[in-house]
């Protein structure tokens, strides 16, 4: 087995200062809501980390999650973190292809049996194995084969976590999520369409540091990033409370940065870190840019009534059916009245 340098070795070789490294560890600790005392531990763990094997499987996906990851804000450090995991298999990023690529995957699995991480993006089609294949292998087969020796599985992006856009109505490919299929390995969902880069790397950093997965919510998402709603952390919340809403895009309210509830914002039911961590190194997030939250880290967000349909919009069914109900009501009432009249007439005659 070739010597695998530790992360510390690599960083040193790359000329990353100790100070810079410690700053990163402090930021990570803060992100994970860990006390400052944990920082040296994170530093120690990361420093001594052997680059664990990571196999990244891409199924029915748009590659947006990978794109998000590579748009990381501190390319130097995060890129290095990525260098410090042995990314042994990734469709988009790897150089190899075809048989060579598959061979690499199998080699990584064998060498690190029981210890490698499987990261998945994209949903898995169950309608027909032929809908999505890699090197002639169906997504389903590849997934089940690869997770056999995995330490844990991280479903990255809403497609892998919940089925995502392929799984949206009418779900023509029969797309399902990772957790629908993988039952005997720990699965962490990092949803979002795409997820925030820092969220992805923080989950990995936690695993690297502590060798265990973070606390998860009822949807299998790390509570640290998915424990609060956008609504509860949104900087526009005071406008919601005051009743100041943008009515249309680019109207006076929109320009004043008022609440986007009426434009369909799903913030109240969406759990993610967008309102605090934001995107592009804290530059902005959709609401701040004037667009209502899509709710993209929630299961089935494509089918929640529409991105621009306000959360409190009801679905009253078709006009036709309502008309039908009206007709039925009138008919029943008429029948009751006729019966009542008959009775009345009968007894009037009797007297």
């Amino acid at each position, binding site marked *: 087995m070739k010597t695998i340098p530790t992360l510390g070795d690599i960083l040193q070789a790359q000329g990353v200062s100790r100070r810079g490294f410690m700053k990163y560890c402090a930021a990570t600790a803060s992100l994970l809501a860990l006390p400052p005392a944990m920082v040296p531990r994170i530093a120690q763990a990361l420093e001594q980390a052997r680059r664990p094997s990571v196999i990244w499987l891409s199924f029915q996906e748009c590659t947006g999650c990978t794109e998000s990851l590579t748009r990381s804000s501190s390319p130097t450090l995060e890129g290095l973190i990525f260098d410090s995991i042995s990314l042994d298999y990734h469709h988009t990023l790897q150089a190899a292809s075809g048989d060579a690529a598959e061979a690499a995957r199998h080699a990584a699995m064998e060498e690190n049996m029981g210890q490698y991480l499987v990261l998945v993006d994209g949903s898995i089609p169950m309608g027909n194995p032929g809908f999505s294949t890699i090197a002639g292998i169906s997504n389903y087969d590849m997934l089940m084969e690869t997770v056999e020796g995995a330490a844990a599985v991280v479903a990255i992006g809403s497609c892998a976590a919940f089925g995502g856009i392929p799984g949206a109505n009418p779900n023509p490919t029969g797309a399902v999520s990772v957790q629908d299929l993988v039952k005997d390995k720990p699965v962490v969902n990092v949803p979002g369409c795409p997820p925030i880069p820092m969220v992805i790397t923080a989950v990995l950093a936690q695993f690297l540091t502590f060798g265990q997965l973070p606390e998860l919510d009822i949807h299998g998402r790390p509570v640290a990033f998915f424990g609060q*709603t956008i*609504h509860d952390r949104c900087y526009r919340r005071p406008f*919601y*409370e*005051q*009743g100041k*809403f943008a009515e249309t895009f680019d109207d006076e309210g929109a320009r004043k940065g008022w609440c986007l*509830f*009426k434009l369909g914002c799903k913030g*109240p*039911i969406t759990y993610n870190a967008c309102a605090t961590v934001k995107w592009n190194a804290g530059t902005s997030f959709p609401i701040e840019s004037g667009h209502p939250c899509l709710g993209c880290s929630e*299961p*089935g967000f494509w*089918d*929640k*009534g529409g991105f621009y*349909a*306000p*959360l*409190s*919009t*009801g*679905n*009253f*069914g078709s006009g036709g*059916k*309502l008309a*039908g*109900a*009206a007709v*039925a*009501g*009138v008919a*029943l*009432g*008429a029948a*009751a*009245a*006729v019966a*009542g*009249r008959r009775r*009345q*007439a009968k007894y009037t005659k009797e007297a």
Partner: protein
Amino acid sequence: MDLLDFARGPALQVAAYILVAGVLWRLVGILMLKEKPEFSEPRKPGGFMAALKVIYTRSFTAAPFKRATLYPKMLAYVLHIGFFAVIFLFVPHIVFFEGFLGFDWPGLPNNVIYLSGVAAVVAGLALLVRRLTDPVLRLISNFDDYFSWFVTILPILTGLIMPVRMGVRYETLLAIHILSVAVLMIWLPFGKLGHTFLVFVTRGTTGMVFERRGAKT
């Protein structure tokens, strides 16, 4: 389909169908019964205007009865006004109506709405206590009275809990709130909540009959 999807979808749909069908059933069932013909010579014009007059005036208690009925009347006003303020002047609700009416109207700030909701619930509780303790009300009250109370207060209550959370996830609270509204919609046509639409019929009828007599309404 999770609870919220169910509440916003099939639950509200079915509730809407039942509401529409039920209201028409009850109204038509009453109005299509035999009409009592009236041949007496009127003292004053009756008809539609008389009906409208009494629909309006009966909202206010006549002076001789004011003192005796002041307490429950005030509570009822607080309950109704608070209830309507919450339903029609809270922006997320206005958006709800806009969804099928096609137009909207200005709302009030959330804290004002919250206060109205609290006032409505407090008035509702006071009215319930009265119904349980006043001898007249104890005698005449039945299941309909208590169930209608429950079904009316529940949406307000669940709505008030939403910002407070009480350890429950927001989307669950929202689902429960919407479901409680669905229950209200389903019950409304059938019990005494039907006064929502019957009040116009009963007051209007009395207006027409007694105004034409020149009698006090």
